[in-house]
């Protein structure tokens, strides 16, 4: 193996193509391949009838930007913008306005009520609903819930999606998408820190 091919996480983490951390990722070939396969399954799907690709990209841009203003958020913002610039701009505004600290939320569990915390909740306004429609704004509301206060997720949140026209299959994929992005963004962020704290190989003089 003389040439290493970068994948999405290598790029999001800013790994030097031949650096220690890029090589270290190759020691986990299944993790590396299946992480990329997960990404492909969600944003290059075999079948997107229940959750069209452009909606996936808009939700991805929203969910990653709510979490952080980082390379992963920029990546999905770019994909969303290329797919639908007008709606991507609205989604970006919604995301940056609703970015907040988490996880927070009220516990259902009686013994954990003392640990309940509160924070900024997201409710799409009329302008966003006019621009994006009920179906997509319902998805953004669910993405915000799962991203920053997942412990509050419950049947009412899914009823809202069903009422907005989401199918059960579509809800499963939406939940996978938002949840996967929480993983991918954190792997990239974690490996980026590891990369930056690992000394570069000595430069070989030309």
């Amino acid at each position, binding site marked *: 193996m003389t040439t290493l091919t970068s994948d999405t996480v290598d790029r999001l983490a800013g790994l030097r193509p031949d650096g220690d951390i890029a090589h270290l990722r190759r020691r986990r070939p299944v993790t590396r391949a299946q992480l990329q396969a*997960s990404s492909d*399954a969600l944003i290059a799907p075999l079948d997107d009838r229940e959750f069209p690709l452009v909606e996936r990209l808009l939700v991805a841009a929203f969910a990653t930007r709510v979490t952080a203003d980082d390379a992963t958020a920029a990546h999905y913002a770019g994909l969303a913008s290329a797919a639908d610039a007008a709606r991507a701009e609205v989604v970006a505004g919604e995301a940056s306005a609703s970015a907040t600290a988490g996880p927070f939320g009220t516990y*259902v569990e009686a013994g954990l009520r003392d640990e309940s915390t509160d924070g900024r909740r997201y409710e799409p306004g009329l302008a966003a609903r006019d621009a994006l429609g009920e179906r997509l704004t319902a998805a953004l509301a669910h993405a915000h819930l799962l991203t920053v206060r997942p412990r509050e997720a419950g049947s009412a949140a899914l009823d809202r999606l069903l*009422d907005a026209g989401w199918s059960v299959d579509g809800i499963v994929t939406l939940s996978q998408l938002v949840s996967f992005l929480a993983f991918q963004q954190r792997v990239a962020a974690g490996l980026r820190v590891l990369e930056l704290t690992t000394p570069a190989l000595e430069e070989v003089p030309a």
Partner: protein
Amino acid sequence: MTGTTTDVRTLVHDAPHPHAFTRAEVGWVPWLEPFPADELTERHYDGLVDRPRASSDYFRLLVRDPEILRARTLVDKDIFYNVGEGLPRAERELAAAAASRVNGCVFCASVHARFAAHYSKRADLVDLLLDEGISAELGERWDAIVAASAALTATPIAFDAVHVQRLRDAGLDDLEISDVIHAAAFFNWANRLMLSIGRPVAPAAETS
């Protein structure tokens, strides 16, 4: 799609809810209808990876999107079971339990606390994490892993060079630190998925 009506509603369950984090056997019920077992095709079985998973409501709900379920299952297994080198299994499970503790996923925390206790033989320390949360004192090596997992689980992501240095000082090499990152990050996927599409059920002992 405004005005769309549908007959599909979320499922109603009267099963008791857990009251706190626990290592006991927490159950789980889906909010949405699992895919019918008698309609599974080879594409679905490919998504399930292990055919016996067809008996699980959780996996038969997720199999509604077989491709992402398959990839998720394979990455999950590799992050936690591939222990030929890198971080010991117990500490991968500790990272998973810590992330679940922070997000508030009682189901995931119960499963991975059991694994962490089993592989480490330190059930007492695992119970401290469940009872007291991430500020529990578990010894420097475990504290460093828990702190890193919690920082990676926070929004915005708070994991930084100080966490890496603390892990290195505790004796972890870069592959092991990468394993901490992957295990904690993966539970930011698992917790959200588990919480989105269903809910935990109290262990039998709590309700008897």
